[in-house]
């Protein structure tokens, strides 16, 4: 069968400061009818620009597209602007990454979809409304008929992405281009959206071009895969071939760096990622980290509770409370990694910040080396913070753009008057070397570094005070896979040499499995399951843990999960009315150290 879309030698260049800079350099691929092709690559590989070039959505005056893009029998690059507008949204539809900003907040979602139907398919207003309800049903939005009249802010991220998909389907496209459609979503919601896209593809008989950085998602959804690097397609072929026998060194490096859930079975301790050379494709065997866990508890958290009050109205009346952290207790030994996992809004980040008292908890106790942090006056607290440091999620936001990186690393030493200016700068250079950067880089500013390098700088800054505990809040989530692997390896090395304890906060189950000694699963501010990594991943007890594990995409097309229908659960909100009294919880011990919350009726349906 002839392909729906055929891309030949596509090259796109952008004009930067009067010079043409190539971003896509000669990409060719075909998409057959009802086929899903994944474009996969790291940031800057040109995968999104490829999609935008196909749609001719790059800025007209500052970009140049050459090559050929044939949609069935028409070359899209030679069409007039008016014809191209009919192709966009008609024959080819697009779904973007950020569902929060791609809907107009002042119009109802139903109106926004009906508008497209009236414009493109020439339906009458009432017919368009009926069609909108049908589309909502199609993308499995519960209570479709009533929800079409809601405004976008009433929808969660996953539901908004469904609305965007419904909008894309409005004109029965032959090709759907999905640009990282699940990257901003939680893992259970991501699984739902992936299932939905597959299901709709069967029902509508359309082809899908799926752009992603996540090899797990690729394995889950794509029939064929194109691996991109520096604007070139370095390898393409059937997905299972690429996963089984990657030929290009870069594909091999990329696959080696992908954390795979279940890869840690039979291993006792956290394990480094294998490092594959991008040019030669040779790989070093990953070593298990040495045993770093000390017998004594470094951190003891008991009944930690943090709530935020929501006030509104004329006199600031209490409207409700966010129960961000409810009655959380755990221990952390020196040299140990405890992972806090859960989805957005589960309170894992608030827990980390409450432990450091960057947010004031409401109740409970946090003991560091036996001393209660929560009772300390501000001056003493600043003193104690030297022993616990934090690494943040966004390496772009957590460095002061107006401070050279050397000054940023030296700053904690100067604040705490632990060194003279000269000593502090010598120490900063030393620390830069320690995290794998060059000491000469100390005079440069953060914008001159890549995301991975910045995260190394943040780690160096956290290490400057020689802390015992590091709270790593989603510290590797914003990084590309291969960079992620390197930063995790660095963190494991540092743990081995400095006996650091990590409170590792993450939503990524596969990374957590790799790095942690123990795992705590959080849901709506509470720990629902905590235990040794092997026990929690090997024999999950709580229904929520099971859901979470089942939703993780597995980077192995052979194990592509067979799921049962598309569910439309949403992540529940931790906002409660002011008179809410949290229920008494008790835990049962399944195996040594493995505690599970005794769950109530709300989980019975899921557990069955």
């Amino acid at each position: 069968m002839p392909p729906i879309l055929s891309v030949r030698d596509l090259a796109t260049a952008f004009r930067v400061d009067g010079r043409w800079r190539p971003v896509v350099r000669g990409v060719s691929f075909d998409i057959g009818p009802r086929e899903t092709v994944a474009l996969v690559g790291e940031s800057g590989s040109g995968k999104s620009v490829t999609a935008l070039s196909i749609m001719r959505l790059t800025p007209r005056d500052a970009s140049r597209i050459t090559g050929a893009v044939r949609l069935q029998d028409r070359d899209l690059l030679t069409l007039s602007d008016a014809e191209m507008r009919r192709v966009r949204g008609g024959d080819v539809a697009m779904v973007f990454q950020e569902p929060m900003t791609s809907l107009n907040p002042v119009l109802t979602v139903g109106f926004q979809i009906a508008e497209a139907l009236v414009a493109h398919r020439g339906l009458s207003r009432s017919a368009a409304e009926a069609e909108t309800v049908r589309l909502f049903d199609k993308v499995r939005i519960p209570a479709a008929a009533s929800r079409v009249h809601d405004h976008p802010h009433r929808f969660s991220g996953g539901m908004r992405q469904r609305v965007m998909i419904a909008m894309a389907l409005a004109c029965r496209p032959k090709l759907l281009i999905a640009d990282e459609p699940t990257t901003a979503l939680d893992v259970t919601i991501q699984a739902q959206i992936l299932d939905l896209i597959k299901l709709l593809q069967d029902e509508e008989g359309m082809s899908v071009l799926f752009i992603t950085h996540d090899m797990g998602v690729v394995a889950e959804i794509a029939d064929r895969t194109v691996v991109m690097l520096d604007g070139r397609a370095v390898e393409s072929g059937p997905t299972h071939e690429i996963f089984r026998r990657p030929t290009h060194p870069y594909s091999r490096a990329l696959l080696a760096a992908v954390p795979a859930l279940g890869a840690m079975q039979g291993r006792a301790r956290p394990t480094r990622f294998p490092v594959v050379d991008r040019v030669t494709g040779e790989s070093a065997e990953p070593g298990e980290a040495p045993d770093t866990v000390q017998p004594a508890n470094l951190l003891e958290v008991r009944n930690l509770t943090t709530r935020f009050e929501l006030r509104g109205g004329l006199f600031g009346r209490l409207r409700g409370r966010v129960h961000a952290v409810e009655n959380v207790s755990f221990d952390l030994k020196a040299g140990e990694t405890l992972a806090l996992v859960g989805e957005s809004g589960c309170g894992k980040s608030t827990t980390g910040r409450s432990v450091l008292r960057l947010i004031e908890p409401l109740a409970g106790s946090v003991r560091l080396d036996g001393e209660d942090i929560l009772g300390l006056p501000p001056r003493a607290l600043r003193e104690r913070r030297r022993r616990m440091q934090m690494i943040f999620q966004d390496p772009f936001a957590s460095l002061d753009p107006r401070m050279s990186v050397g000054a940023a690393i030296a700053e904690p030493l100067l604040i705490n008057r632990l060194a003279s200016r000269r000593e502090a700068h010598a120490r900063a250079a030393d620390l830069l070397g320690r995290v794998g950067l060059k000491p000469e880089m100390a005079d440069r500013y953060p914008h001159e570094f890549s995301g991975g390098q910045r995260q190394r700088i943040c780690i160096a800054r956290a290490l400057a005070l020689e802390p015992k505990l590091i709270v790593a809040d989603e510290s590797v989530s914003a990084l590309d896979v291969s960079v992620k692997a390197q930063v995790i390896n660095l963190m494991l090395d540092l743990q081995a040499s400095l006996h650091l304890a990590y409170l590792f906060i993450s939503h990524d189950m596969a990374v957590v499995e790799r790095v942690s000694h123990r795992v705590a699963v959080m849901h709506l501010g509470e720990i629902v399951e905590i235990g040794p990594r092997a026990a929690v991943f090997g024999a999950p007890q709580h229904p929520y843990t099971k859901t979470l594990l089942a939703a993780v995409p597995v980077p192995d097309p052979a194990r592509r999960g067979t799921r049962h229908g598309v569910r439309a659960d949403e992540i529940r909100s931790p906002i409660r009315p002011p008179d809410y009294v949290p229920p008494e919880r008790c835990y049962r011990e399944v195996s040594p150290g493995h505690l599970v919350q005794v769950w109530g009726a709300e989980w019975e349906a899921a557990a069955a």
Partner: protein
Amino acid sequence: MAGSTLASPSAEAGAPAAAPAATGRDTWRRFRRHRLAVASSVLLGVMVLGVLVGGLVWPVAIDEIDFSAMLQGPSPQHPFGTDDLGQDLLARMIYGGRISLAVGFAAMLISTLVGVAVGALAGMSRGFLDSALMWLTDLFLSLPQLPLLLLVIYLFRDRLKEVFGVEGGVFVMIVAVIGGLRWMPVARLVRAQFLSLREKEFVEAARAQGAGPLHQVTRHILPNAIGPVIVAATIEVSAAIIAESTLSFLGLGFPPDIPTWGRLLFDAKDHLDVAPHWALFPGAAIFLTVLSINFIGDGLRDALDPRRVL
């Protein structure tokens, strides 16, 4: 500004090479890339130099009345022409420019300092102090300026004259009034910047390292908020020069015999048809000063931002 060895302090005033950044050389390099800002610095430097030492080069008395040379256009004897009393306009502009520029810069300093202080305090404190300071800001914003000026001048003119002398007293009063009534936009701007910067991760990182509030503000928040403040401050200079002309125009500013640029414009308005040069030169001086200060502000903002790699 080559060759201006004569009065280096004034030349420095126009060339902001010594910006308070960590790496002065990089800042200077970035500033130099901003062509308009460099040209403006030269222009402003020449004007500042002109009003400061111009009296030595052009030693003509400002109040020498010569009825034989009334309302003359530019000529070798009177390069900027004369006014209706035959007084030399160039000499009067040199003299008046000192006052106009001094008023502009001093009022800018006062309004920016007060604005930054109020805005920073409000932005860092949550709760009552923040609300109270913002109420105060709104209160000042809603005050009708001209009646207030009249009141202030009526109440304080004589007392200030006793302390600072005639010119000094009016200068202090005008600067205080202009500065004291124009800090509100800066305060609102700074507060808004603080509210967003305060929650940035790098500030939180500093807190986690044990930095106190003062350190957070001086090292992290203020340097990152400074860009818009510089732009606002340059607008303040222009606004103050114009406000001083307004006051002079209304007869509320300096005594009528002191020829500030605004006063010259006021006096020229009745003779626009026969002696347009009279309004043209002070008008152009105000215009060029304001324009060059705004460009310098743009250049400074870019120069102080290390992210900018031109």
